[in-house]
């Protein structure tokens, strides 16, 4: 177990290092001269350009640039937002709670509805419900998130007037969370279904049934845990993809989270802020997948033994 954690930690750190290098190098993708693109005046003098280049750290070799970037990073300095005129880290941290709330509620909807649905369907293999779930899965991966969000607003806020379009409080979070979680609800359900079908075919289930245990008890005592482990394994991956969906959903519902900030930063060409955003998202995704994998190995010791 210890060795597994260490090995998994090492790969996560390497992933983060490479991601940070790529994020640092993104600035070289800017077409033309980054300094002249980012300088405020329309026709900067050569001195101004040189000063800007120096301020951006572009006047040194690439590897030195990266080392500088990492040096700043280690002290929590992600640079200064050009237009917000505040440290990037401050801006990002202020928006973090909204994004996390949204992502976690989306995950809760995907797992909370997906798992019971998958378990139900596993008992009714090949039935109408089973086919409907397959269709729901196709719809889930095909529906444009932004359109689903607006359609829900049109139905529940504009027409039925049940839920607020925007504002504070948990009621205003219902539609965004559902929009975000919908695509993954069916995926979770399908994974649960196949895990459950596998488990129900195991010898220990047959033994439990043959000694006269009721089906309810078989389900709760013997089938639930191994099936849940298979689902836990994909939660890390799903969370990563939810974080991608967050960007769209926040912009549909005008939630002041990281995704909305990122789009604003892009439209203002606020490159340090975009870099900070990319790095933070990479860190969140890598950390979550690490934690989920460790939790998974703890639940199922066979994983770390491999």
């Amino acid at each position, binding site marked *: 177990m210890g060795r597994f954690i260490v090995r998994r930690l090492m*790969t996560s750190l390497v992933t983060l290092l490479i991601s940070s290098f790529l994020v640092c190098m993104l600035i070289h993708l800017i077409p033309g001269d980054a300094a002249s693109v980012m300088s405020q005046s329309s026709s900067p003098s050569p001195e101004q350009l040189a000063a800007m280049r120096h301020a951006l750290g572009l006047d040194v070799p690439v590897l030195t640039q990266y080392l500088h970037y990492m040096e700043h990073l280690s002290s929590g300095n992600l640079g200064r937002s050009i237009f917000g005129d505040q440290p990037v880290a401050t801006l990002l941290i202020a928006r973090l709670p909204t994004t996390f709330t949204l992502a976690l509620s989306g995950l809760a909807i995907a797992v909370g509805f997906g798992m019971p649905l998958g378990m139900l369907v596993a008992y009714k293999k090949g039935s109408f419900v089973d086919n409907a779930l397959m269709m729901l899965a196709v719809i889930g991966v*095909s*529906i*444009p998130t932004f359109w689903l969000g607006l359609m829900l607003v049109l139905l529940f806020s504009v027409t039925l007037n049940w839920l607020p379009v925007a504002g504070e409080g948990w009621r205003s979070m219902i539609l965004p969370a559902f929009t975000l979680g919908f695509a993954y609800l069916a995926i979770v359900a399908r994974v649960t279904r196949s895990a459950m079908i596998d488990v129900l075919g195991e010898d220990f289930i047959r033994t439990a049934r043959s000694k006269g245990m009721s089906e309810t008890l078989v389900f709760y005592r013997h089938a639930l845990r191994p099936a849940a482990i298979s689902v836990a394994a994909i939660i890390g*991956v799903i969370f*990563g*993809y939810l974080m991608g969906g967050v960007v769209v959903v926040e912009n549909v519902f005008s939630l002041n989270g990281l995704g909305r900030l990122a789009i604003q930063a892009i439209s203002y060409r606020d490159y340090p802020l975009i870099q900070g955003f990319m790095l933070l998202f990479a860190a969140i995704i890598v950390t979550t997948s690490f934690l989920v994998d460790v939790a998974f190995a703890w639940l199922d010791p066979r994983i770390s033994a491999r």
Partner: protein
Amino acid sequence: MSRQAEPPYELNDPLQWHSKKRSKIRLSWSVIVSGGIILLITLVAISASFIVPFDPNQIGVGQRLTAPGMDFFLGTDEFGRDVLSRMIFGARITLCVGVSAVGIGFACGVVVGAVAAYVGGWLGEILMRSVDLLYTFPDVLIALGLVAFLGPSFTNAVIAVGLSAIPYYARSTYGAVLSERQKPYVLAARLIGASHARVVGRHLLPNVLPTTIVLASLGFSSAVLAAASLSFLGLGAQPPTPEWGLMLSEGRDYITRAPWLVVIPGLSVFVTVVAFNVFGDGIRDLFDLKENRAIASRRFFYGSLRRPPRPIP
């Protein structure tokens, strides 16, 4: 005299794939319906200039925000432009986006995957490790980062969507080339003196392409979806382009007064993406690629089948 039963054969065996299976293909209704929708969209896109009732960018062909009716079949938008005409030209844009983005991702991905699998060694290791790394992150996020620095424009959005799909194609090509490389015909080609480039180009790739092309049809739908999302966020198509994602984004301010401006473009994206997904799935099942590919690649990447479908490297 009764006919002899046909010997069992492997569906994925490249030698028989061409000769025998063609005549035995049986299409399911879902493939026919989705294929029909794709054909319809393609026809509309090709003949767009001839069938539009109005110029898609002509302002004020009707009253602002006219509801769908006899004069304007799908209504008009906030500038009095005909929504139907814009939707028709949007179909052309959507297909172009799909084809270009898939083309970019496919071309780069196949090269990366084939080189990594054929050359192997440290080069293969580095290539596939980087692909695994990129695979960790949602492709929308990668595309977003690329667009942010390349500058928001439609061309850049399409390039970014294409590049962000490289890991997907690279991984599938990698698995396919790796299993194909072991086969005797590759050794035979080498033995009669064919160069590495010739072995890859003339022998390996033609045998691997059917697999990867089927996967490309599935990649098409995610490319269309990602490009529409970027346009919706204002990072793709710019006004007055009649792009579906952008039209939806422009129409959202009028959602209460003119819901058709939001319903119609989104529905079109949805139907297109569903059609390509169902079609791709159907084709894949037809050639029985799912099981073999999934197992082969998973076994290779993780040494066992019990790992989750998309573990983090």
